[in-house]
């Protein structure tokens, strides 16, 4: 049977432990607003047509997509199953604003064929990149399997 605290410091400590900040919802909302408003570093990436040109019309107009958008799309595309998930994602963009390399650190569930998981990841990433940046964007996709976890990689 638990002893109830008798001293004033012990009673005050128990009360402090049990305290739930009444203004937490307000602070939480403010934090989330600020997080969404915080612009993380990003670069523009040029869309490349199937012919390898960045010109979108006869005038040489170009279309750019933020690396933030590409990262988000790859992230979402890789979160569809329990067997694999990205841990880190690096995009290399050259001075001409072209995506030249994608590097991904991958976490797999125990029992997953890691080579097959890497191949699947590469296929998914290539599809996202082509969809977002045009058929002419075909960067190498380097995969490093850095960890294996028990259970669903989205939860553990």
């Amino acid at each position, binding site marked *: 049977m638990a002893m109830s605290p008798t*001293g004033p410091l012990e009673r005050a400590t128990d009360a402090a*432990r049990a305290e739930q900040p009444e203004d937490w919802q307000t602070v939480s909302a403010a934090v989330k607003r600020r*997080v969404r408003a915080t612009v*993380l570093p990003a670069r523009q990436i040029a869309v490349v047509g199937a012919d390898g040109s960045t010109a979108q019309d006869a005038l040489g107009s170009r279309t750019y997509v933020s690396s933030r958008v590409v990262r988000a799309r790859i992230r979402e595309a890789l979160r569809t199953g329990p067997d694999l998930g990205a841990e880190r994602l690096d995009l290399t963009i050259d001075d001409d604003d072209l995506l030249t390399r994608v590097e991904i650190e991958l976490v797999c569930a125990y029992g997953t064929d890691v080579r097959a998981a890497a191949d699947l990841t590469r296929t998914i990433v290539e599809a996202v990149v082509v969809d977002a940046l045009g058929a002419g964007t075909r960067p190498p996709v380097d995969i490093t399997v850095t960890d294996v976890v028990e259970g669903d990689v989205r*939860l553990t």
Partner: protein
Amino acid sequence: MPAAAFDAASDGALVRAARLGDDDAFGEIVDRYGPGMLRYARRLVNGSDADAGEVVQEAFISAWKSLDSFRGESSLKTWLIRLVHRRAVDLLRHRRPTPIDDDLLSRVVRVADDNPLQDVLDSELLGALQEALDELPWNQRSAWLLREVEGLGYDEIAHAMGTTVGSVRGHLHRGRRQLAERMARWR
């Protein structure tokens, strides 16, 4: 992944997703550890709601920007508490002079010698606790709060405060003694 689905995610899974820019995953981290961080910040910054809110907001923004630097050497909770601690100490240092010499302050802390009502409400006790905490140097205050209220281990407290376990033991010993003396008047 819907935000609600992150409820059951481990800290590691949340950090992985948030590192890749998923603000819903980060939102789950905020709600998982924020209340404790706010409670700690409030007690550390003299009970000020506005200061505590500011400290916690700044700590989370810093965490969002620097998730890549979280290597799992401590728990996520300890890492976040460390960010709160740094910002709270910065704020306290800029707002008013803070005693650095524990022994000097120990001589200032009054020993309770009166005997008020025995049956006091929790709110009154908490108010008295805050007054007593306010008279402690911040390192004693911090060590006591992290150990007694937030339940961190000595090594976690040392990591959060950027000091050694030996120092934490010393801060705790002095802090407990001073608080017991200050709170004894409520007996």
